[in-house]
């Protein structure tokens, strides 16, 4: 029983990590909170849904299409929504991405209606029974493993390539990065592109277990905020640990106090903020030296 709860919590956490990591990356680098992150994830669900219904493409394969499309979508979002608001007051920045989030919800409603849609893969309803007490849903395992692989690729990219190192440099000291010859604006664009690709991917991996509908992103952005603040804003290791913790918390309370499932991680979140205001892995002042 306990093992079952732990396993499903960790499996859930894997996808939460992917959903949150883009948010923390965009904030860490460009110091912009992307309130449209949940809607990007929602669009990732829809794209994967349509690829499945029209071309019969399995969600796991559709990530090859989701990555470039959402990277491009992210760069466009940077160029047309975030960049124009970079020098504006913080409140204007909030309105820019919040406005985009509402726009995308309405657009989805207009295009696809309010129906709940999902993808039923051949493994959607299969579960592997390990012992009489433990059975694991195959589609959750697929989503978890794919998330981890993508995460691994992202971390290697950040550690090994010039652009990856430049992304880290900009998030640690923006003006020093400029003095090293790094075009900060271009790095912002890459970071937003990568962040959106992660959100889109999370949507693609979640669709076999969840429904796509115009406001599907809302609950995920709330979870992502909890994960990001819990781990420490801008911290990638923080998002990883935060994702697992929130996944575990959700599966534990889901069994024992299902009514309090969503409330529980907010309570946990407030407690963490009281004990460690910068989050578990946070660096003091991560939000300073803003984009201005």
């Amino acid at each position, binding site marked *: 029983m306990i093992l079952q709860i732990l396993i499903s919590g960790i499996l859930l956490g894997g996808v939460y990590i992917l959903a949150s990591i883009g948010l923390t990356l965009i904030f860490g680098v460009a110091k912009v909170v992307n309130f449209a992150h949940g809607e990007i994830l929602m669009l990732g669900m829809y794209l994967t849904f349509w690829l499945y219904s029209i071309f019969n493409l399995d969600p796991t394969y559709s990530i090859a299409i989701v990555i470039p499309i959402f990277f491009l979508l992210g760069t466009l979002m940077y160029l047309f929504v975030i960049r124009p608001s970079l020098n504006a007051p913080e409140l204007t920045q909030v309105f820019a991405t919040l406005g985009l989030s509402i726009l995308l919800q309405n657009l989805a409603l207009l295009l696809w209606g309010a129906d709940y849609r999902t993808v039923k893969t051949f493994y959607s309803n299969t579960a592997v029974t390990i012992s009489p007490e433990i059975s694991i849903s195959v589609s959750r395992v697929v989503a978890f493993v794919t998330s981890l692989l993508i995460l691994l690729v992202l971390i290697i990219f950040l550690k090994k390539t010039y652009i990856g*190192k430049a992304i880290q440099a900009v998030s640690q*000291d923006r003006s020093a990065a400029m003095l*090293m*010859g790094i075009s900060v604006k271009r790095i912002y664009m890459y970071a937003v592109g990568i962040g959106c690709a992660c959100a889109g991917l999370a949507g693609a991996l979640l669709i076999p277990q969840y429904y796509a509908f115009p406001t599907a992103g809302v609950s995920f952005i709330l979870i992502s905020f909890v994960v990001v603040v819990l781990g420490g804003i801008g911290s990638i290791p923080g998002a990883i640990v935060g994702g697992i913790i929130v996944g575990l918390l959700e599966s534990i309370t889901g069994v024992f106090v299902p009514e309090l499932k969503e409330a529980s991680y907010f309570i946990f979140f407030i407690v963490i903020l009281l004990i460690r205001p910068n989050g578990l892995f946070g660096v003091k002042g991560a939000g300073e030296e803003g984009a201005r």
Partner: protein
Amino acid sequence: MLDIKNIDVFYGDVQVLFDVSLQVRPGEIVALVGANAAGKSTTLKTISGLLKPKAGEILFHEKNIHTLDSDKIVEKGIIQVPEGRRLFPRLSVEANLELGSYPKRARAKAQDNLKNMYEIFPQLYDRRHQLTGSLSGGEQQMCAIARGLMSMPEVLMVDETSLGLSPLLVKHTIRTIKEINELGTTILLIDQNVNYALRIAHRAYVLENGRIVMQGEGNSLLEDPYLRKAYLGI
């Protein structure tokens, strides 16, 4: 080769540099000295493109650079080692050095240059996997200078070469700067330690309240009664 002509620089509405002009010729070590808040760092920030002059111009090899973004200026071969080193604290020594070779002009030779840096600064080799946030002040300064050199600059600008270092380390840093210069890199340096700065500089400028008030050869400025009184306390 680097020609700063009559620049006025502001922070918002506050003017900090007034009609500042200075030249750096190929192969020279030029020092810019002055009291706290005189505007030395502001001058370097303007050369690097972090600040834009309201009036005047900056030429590099006879071409305007004051309209360019900072990354384009680095690409042209002017690098700055900023005040307070400004290493990336949560990256290793080696990753910091590799970021020094971010400009396209330096990437192809990054591996060779990295080897050279470890030869010039052996203590950095020993600490190459350590995060720079945990280095000592002297090691950080070496790492910052090495990171600057990784960009293969024509002009290396160093802001506060010796601040916070022990006298022994100051001597070591100054000697390193001289050696780098002898290997062909032109240097523009700022140092609070006017005595040291003037000793190694071929030429120097004295900045007071945002204005250049004196200039000349390093040695002759050291003999100047006004400068001795105001900056060396003799």
